[in-house]
């Protein structure tokens, strides 16, 4: 006697196939909706702002007159910000990940740390802004400098970099670790020669995505008190500055209709910047990808 009757299977087959198609449709619709939102956004921004884009827009400082308003200070300021955020966040983030994955013993304390790093990634950016204001701007008296804002942004993206690097390090096969240690290599030699080369694509991909988040964040900069209208470029990390999202925020909150156009042009510049960084992430990942 057989438990599965062929006839029953055939009879139920149609219903199963219909359900399959329904779910396929639902998921496709979800993707299309997200895509549609993106297309509308891009269309609006580009039709609105493209007319204002010019070389003058990139080389002029901010101005009261919309037709003269440029993004030079913000663009250069954002580059300065990255110059502080990238090394700070990478060194601290990758260092913490190496410690947690390779050196730290598993016990209650390190488990607590591990869980809470992931939790920190979910803390709103405004809170990090307040932290930066208290510690860097006031307590360490760094003022509204590139350094203060850079450290604040580094703290903001640090959890993301740590988690991404931990994942990358964890995905290196344990056998490679064993082989290296089994030959009398120290932990440090194993990390430098075996684990990091294998983990670097993952670490860099995660880190660059985190850095592009830092470029787009506005809230922490507002809380830290970064000014908007600046008629000079910073000449060092202790100078004050402004950044792309701050400038865009300022333009878009002005009442004159003309400034909406300027804001849209600023958004195009910011998105080009982000696209550039994300493509670097993709190139690095493809270049370093190794088989096991």
């Amino acid at each position, binding site marked *: 006697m057989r438990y599965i009757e062929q006839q029953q299977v055939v009879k139920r087959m149609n219903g199963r196939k219909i359900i399959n198609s329904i779910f396929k449709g639902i998921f496709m619709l979800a993707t299309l909706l997200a895509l549609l939102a993106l297309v509308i956004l891009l269309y609006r921004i580009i039709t609105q702002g493209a007319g204002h884009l010019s070389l003058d827009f990139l080389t002029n400082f901010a101005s009261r007159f919309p037709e003269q308003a440029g993004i030079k200070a913000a663009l250069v300021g954002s580059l300065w910000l990255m110059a502080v955020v990238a090394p700070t966040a990478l060194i601290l983030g990758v260092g913490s990940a190496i410690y947690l994955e390779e050196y730290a013993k598993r016990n209650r304390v390190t488990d607590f740390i591990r869980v809470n790093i992931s939790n920190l990634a979910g803390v709103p950016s405004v809170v990090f802004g307040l932290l930066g204001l208290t510690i860097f701007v006031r307590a360490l008296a760094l003022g509204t400098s590139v350094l203060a804002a850079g450290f604040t942004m580094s703290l903001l993206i640090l959890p993301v970099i740590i988690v991404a690097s931990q994942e990358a390090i964890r995905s290196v*096969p344990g056998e490679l670790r064993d082989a290296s240690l*089994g030959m009398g290599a120290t932990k440090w030699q194993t990390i430098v020669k075996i684990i990091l080369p294998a983990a670097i694509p993952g670490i860099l991909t995660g880190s660059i995505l985190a850095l592009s988040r830092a470029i787009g964040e506005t809230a922490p900069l507002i809380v830290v008190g970064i000014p908007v209208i600046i008629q000079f470029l910073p000449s060092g990390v202790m100078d004050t500055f402004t950044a792309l999202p701050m400038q865009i925020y300022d333009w878009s909150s002005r009442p004159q209709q003309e400034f909406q156009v300027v804001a849209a042009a600023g958004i195009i510049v910011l998105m080009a910047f982000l696209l550039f960084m994300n493509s670097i992430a993709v190139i690095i990942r493809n270049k370093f990808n190794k088989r096991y």
Partner: protein
Amino acid sequence: MTMNSTAIATDAVIEQDIVSSNSVYKTNQLNLWYGANHALKNIDLDIKENEVTAIIGPSGCGKSTYIKTLNRMVELVPSVKTSGEILYRGRNIFDKSYGVEELRTRVGMVFQKPNPFPKSIYDNVAYGPRIHGIKNKKILDEIVEKSLRGAAIWDEVKDRLTENAYSISGGQQQRICIARALAIEPDVILMDEPTSALDPISTLKIEELVQELKKDYSIIIVTHNMQQAARISDKTAFFLNGEVVEYDTTDTIFSNPSDKRTEDYISGRFG
């Protein structure tokens, strides 16, 4: 005073020499726990040099744990505790003063699954000498050739040393791993089921290689394949539930075992 301590030191050296003339490893009352799980119980084993010592037993009997204890790789598992002592060439490897890196420079290991690094064949073999500080290209070239010849794979890979080690077959990869272990010029080679992931022909090549290698090295091999133990080893230890049931010459174990459980196991009644 100075005279006295010199005399004592000389005595110690002589004593060590006597021990090392035939024993590489002497295990005394070794116990090991993974957390609450008592994995090795009162192990006493005396492993001789220039012999192949096979460790056999059913899954979970502690044979892999034991071989990993010999170079202290077992300590990578969190929550491992040990008691008792293992003397390597007369010195307790659990001594605080005994650096684990130093021990592993003398004791090479070949793992169950071929695990070459994602580097070129040359860089795989040169890895050990490099981490121990050898930078001279000529010396490295010589070590690489000697090790690859030692692992009987030189002729197959000599024209493709710069190729990635993943581009060759699994059996060849395992011999690269043996060459990599030879490159640190060890005294003992530990092999943890080195042929369990290989096809019969590659297995045969490795078995022949083991016979060749025992002239220069002491080899301890864990295997779940009893025919393999019978073919290649001089001594065999039978492990069961974390204990050594019987340890004798391979001939005795397979032809005239003294313990009923050994007889049952080798005749295939369990395991």
